[in-house]
């Protein structure tokens, strides 16, 4: 694999965004940050594998909406949700829709690292199986 795995981070808080990037530098060199869901959708090719770390509550397109969009587009991208306020029903909905992890702020940096790694793996597999379907 020549390309480093792609990690996308969406958060409306710039500081958080930067901090996540600093943290995930350990996993990949290709960590891309977006301040809103719109920016993410505009700039990212979602048919490629990757892992998305996104805040749930954001002005404009929220985390949930991003998940719906990716699911509809059958994107291989795994999603890790980060939220200030986690509640169980929401977690269930998200998981049913294929989310890997829901982390509640403040989370242990290791948890996010683990989640991203497993997310990337899952994404890779999904992408491969999607490729198999296509061909």
């Amino acid at each position, binding site marked *: 694999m020549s390309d480093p795995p792609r990690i996308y981070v969406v958060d409306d*808080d710039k500081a*958080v965004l*930067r*901090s996540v990037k*600093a943290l995930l530098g350990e996993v990949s060199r290709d960590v891309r940050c977006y301040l809103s869901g719109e920016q993410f959708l505009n700039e990212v090719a979602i048919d490629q594998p990757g892992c998305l770390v996104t805040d749930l*509550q954001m002005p404009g397109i929220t985390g949930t909406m991003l998940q719906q969009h990716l699911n509809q587009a059958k994107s291989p991208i795994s999603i890790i949700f980060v939220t200030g*306020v986690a509640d169980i029903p929401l977690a269930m909905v998200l998981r049913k829709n294929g989310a890997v992890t829901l982390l509640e*702020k*403040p989370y242990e940096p290791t948890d*996010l690292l683990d989640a991203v790694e497993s997310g990337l793996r899952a994404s890779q597999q999904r992408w491969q199986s999607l490729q198999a379907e296509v061909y």
Partner: protein
Amino acid sequence: MPSREGADNFVRQIGEHLLVERYSFEGPGETLPEGTCEFPIEKRVREPSHVSRLPVWWHPTVAGLLIAVIAILDVMRPSASMFYLIPALYVGWSMRGRVEWTCYLVVALTVFLVPVLVTPSRATQTRMLNRALGVGMSLLVAYVVGDRRQFADRLQRSNKELAVRGAKRAFELETTIRFLGQRELRLRTILDSQPECVQLLDSAGFVLEMNRAGLAMVGAESLDQLVGKSIYPLVSAEFRKQFQELTESVFRGDPGTLEFEIVGLTGNRLWLESHASPLRTADGRITAVLAITRDITQRRRAVEAVRESQQLLSSVARALPHWIYIFDFDESRITYSNNSILSDLGYSPEIVGQDLSWEMIANYMTPEERPRLARMLDEWKVLPDGQLREDEYHLRHADGTVHSFAGRETVFARRADGTVRQVLGTLADITTSKLVEAALRQSEQQFSLFMRHLPGLAWIKDVQGRYLFANAAAEKAFGFPLADIVGRTDDELFAPETAAQFKAADQQAVTSGSEVRTIESLKHQDGSLHHSIVSKFSLPSCVGETLVGGMAIDITEQKRAEETIRRISAFRETIVRTAAEGICVCYAVPEFPHVRFSVWNEQMTELTGYTMEEINRLGWYQSMYPDGEIQERAKSRMAQMRYGKDIRAEEWEIIRKDGARRLLAISTSIVETEEDRHAVVALMQDITARKQGEETLRESEERFRLLFEGANDAIFWADAESGLLTHCNAAAENLVGRDRSEIIGQPQSFLHPPEEAERYREIFRAHATSRSRESIEVEVLRSDGRRANVSISPSVTMIGGQRIIQGIFRDITERKRSEESLRESEERFQAFMNQNPLVAWVKDDEYRYRYVNSAFARLFDRPLSEILGRTDYDIYDQQYADQTRANDIVVMQSEKSLDTIEKVPGADGRLRHWLVQKFPLRRSRGRFWVGGTAADVTDRIEAQEALRTSEARLQAVIRHAPNVAIQWYDSNGRVILWNEASEAVFGYSAAEAIGKTLDQLIHTPEETAVFRAALAGISRTGKSIGPTEYSFHRRNGEPGTCLSNIFMIPGDDQSDWFVSMDVDVTERKRLEADLSLRQRELLHASRLNAIGQMVAGLSHEVAQPLNAIANFARGSASLLNTANFPQSETLKEYIQAITDQSRRCGAILQRLRDYSRRAPSRQKSCELNPILIESTELIAPELRRNNVSVGWELASELPPISADRIQIQQVVFNLLNNALDAVRDQERSRRLITIRSSEEHETVMIEIEDHGAGIASEVFQHLFQPFFTTKEDGMGIGLNICETIVRNHGGRIEASSNKFNGATFRVRLPALQKDLRASHLAREIGDNE
């Protein structure tokens, strides 16, 4: 019809009336054959009107015929007596009663006993008796059979068919009877146990059946007393007809009910209620009335009693002057009203007649009152039972005036659930009483003012003698502060004798009911005894008891003067009485004896031998001058005297009582007495002896002549009348240098320089008329033209009936010369005295003016001659003369000088005050004259008087200033004055406070220092201080605060006075402090509450940076692990980010802590925009969570405001929170809040505009009321808090709808004025230090 059904029917009918348990009856075991009894009940039915269908006579006739036939057979064939059974059996069978039986007996006995009596044969008799025995036996049989038959027959008779069936069915009947008997017994038991009367009546009202309860009602002991009798007589006469109608209607088939009264058998009266229904047979015939009757006497009585009391109440209510009404909440109107209040209020009957709905009533209330109405109804709804609510209402009278009503309400009825349904209220018109009250209050005030400002003493006591009121003058005179006087009696205040004196007068005033004037004496505090004219009068008081009012005017001075005068006149009296000369005062009277004496001293009695009474009775002229001619002369002399010709030592011979002649020298003068009468004062001297001596004297005259001739001094005699010189001696010839012949016969003026002849004539005349023996100094003209100064000692003598003036001339030329220098100095003195504005005078020992200076003369605008030689009595009215004379006497007697004030009217009649100094002038022979000087001090005295009045007024104001404690202090801080309000505020009475300094009274050392500093400040600058708050401690130790104005009254000699006027604000301060504390608590609680609501958002807000920090830290760690130094820039960046994020975290917490801090309210100068931003940051997480956008339109240059930062934040926060709630549920495009700031007319404005659903119009007016909310979980205090805070900052808050259909809240706060900014800044710096 089966009998069972009939019985059941009966039971059912009874059951319907009585609601008894329903019994089912079973027969005694055997089944009754059908048709045995159609209607068993009828066995009890009797028909009193029933008669036998066969005529009564039938049975005895048949029996008699049978007996007759048998008797004939018996006679023909003896021993057939058994056949008598045949008629007996017949009788027994057919017998209906005793009638038939008796008929049979009579017939049978007649048949057998008549032959016994008429037949003499014994055998026949025996046989007949045997027959009779047989008949008797047969009768016995007949009775037995008949009785049984009779019973069966009765049953049979009620049923035709049964009757004809006869004995054939006897057995069946027996069975039925037994069965029914049992059933009847049961029913009877049930009936008898009923508490109500159950009775059966037939159509004519006869009682068929009645249970035990019924019997008890009518007072019967058993049914037999009633059965077969009509019930009607028992029913009271007035109900009898109704009862009969009821019975009849029931027989027609209509049941009915009647209430009626009965009179029982024992005479008892009862009220009964009967439900009557028809009792039907099986075929529907009505045979009887079943009546169930209840005793309703108790109920009836209760109803009667209630009705009576209701009638009574309603008539009382109608007669009451108050309006009594019942308000019904169900109907929302007045359902009862005793009379219409509206007619009392003067509205026309058309209006009054209308329905009194509550809205109508409201129309008659005053506009201000109406809003209260709803509140009042709400209060009524929660009134507890038995509690009266009292209120005052104001209703409009038709004439436009407003009447006051005292209203009282209480709960009248409640609904089943306990809520109030009806309220009973009364309204009483108290307008008049209120007016009267006000008028009374005013009058009381006027009275009190009047009393207080009386210059004299004034007080009021109640009947027990306790003082209720005393004015300032009385307080001073009594020597007690008012507080100590009020409530005390005279006994407690004064010495016993003083109190007794006061009480006696009080008693007199109360009993007489009119004014009593007395003179009372009271020892004042300074020990001086004061006398007052006291006027005491009874005063009516409102409680019906009599009060005693008193007013007193101090007359001590007057008393003292009177005393002096009394002493003077006593002195005079004594002189007159004991004089060596006869002194009398007489006046002319028109009638006999023409002259009457009022004074007649002892010497007069000695001279004349008559007492005054005798002389007044006998007459002076008549007894003294018996000789008619002399008498006339005396009378005419008297008449002349009245025109001014006083008698001067004239000699009159009188005849004494003892007849002796006496020669009297009489001198008289006219005096005016008080009664404006001219009285004559006469002095009489017995000169009889002298006259006799004169003769002797004349004899020695020759001897004197020698002496006369040889005298060293020149002696001239001159005729007193003509002034011609009659004699002179040798020395006289030498003196004038002329021969005696030249001198004799010349007028006396010849001796003196001719240019002054007139003067000398005057002097001579003066000497001739007066008896003055003063020596005079004159110039004598000698023949050689020289003039000699001589001193003349004049004397008047009678020589040979001629009045001669003898002048002894002594040459004093030498002496004169030496005297000249003396006179010059005397003239200088005179000039000095006359130029002096001081009034000066000298009076001789007879109080005649001997010298007055020109100021004196000017004063009275009279020439000197009119003053000199006169006394004060000639110049002044008596009262003033008495006063000056009294002082003169004091000087004379004490021989010491006297300074005093005398009041004397001046020439213009105005009373003037003189500061008089009187001093004794020693004269020869131990005599004293009185000298005096006087300065007019009227202006000063009047000024003093005016000052005193003004001071009294001031005192009155100070004393009565309501609630303003006023104190005066001297320059040492000692209390000089302490008014009533001060007593009330500080707890010390004036008596306690005066003379002390405040640290001895109400100040702690610190407070004293503050107060002293204040006084020193005033003293230095002369400016007043205040209103400033000072703390103090009351007498009981309670701390207090007063708001004081202190100012200075500059004194004349460095002794300034300070006046402090205080209002006690302790309570107000406490309340303010309390209120502000509570308000702060509320604000704080509200802030905490808001924070609680936002905890989720805030935790997110904190979690965010914390998370970032953790991430950066881990990132940094991983960088370090790689040990890749070229990445140290990145590491630095991460660490910087960690620092920033922890700061961010800290800032959030800081904000939160600030906001939730319980800080005392403190306004500082601050900028508005940062406050807006900070407040928004607090709520920002919530806004973000709800996707609400905030638009900012902040003015760039706003003036600062003076505000409590946290509180303004709270306002903005609350408004933003409301805006958030308003837009939360809107579609996303409308979730917009705009925050604006701007400046406008010295105010700074905040606007919070939302795009929510807006505020409903009916909500606007309640918007800022506490506990008003439209939110489901809201408490309704947010906007109220905003309003409170903004108001405390001197600003305004308002809400309006905006063009986006949302709401806009505007807060205006006053901008800090430029000149205040600096001082605020300074204070803040100070605070920070």
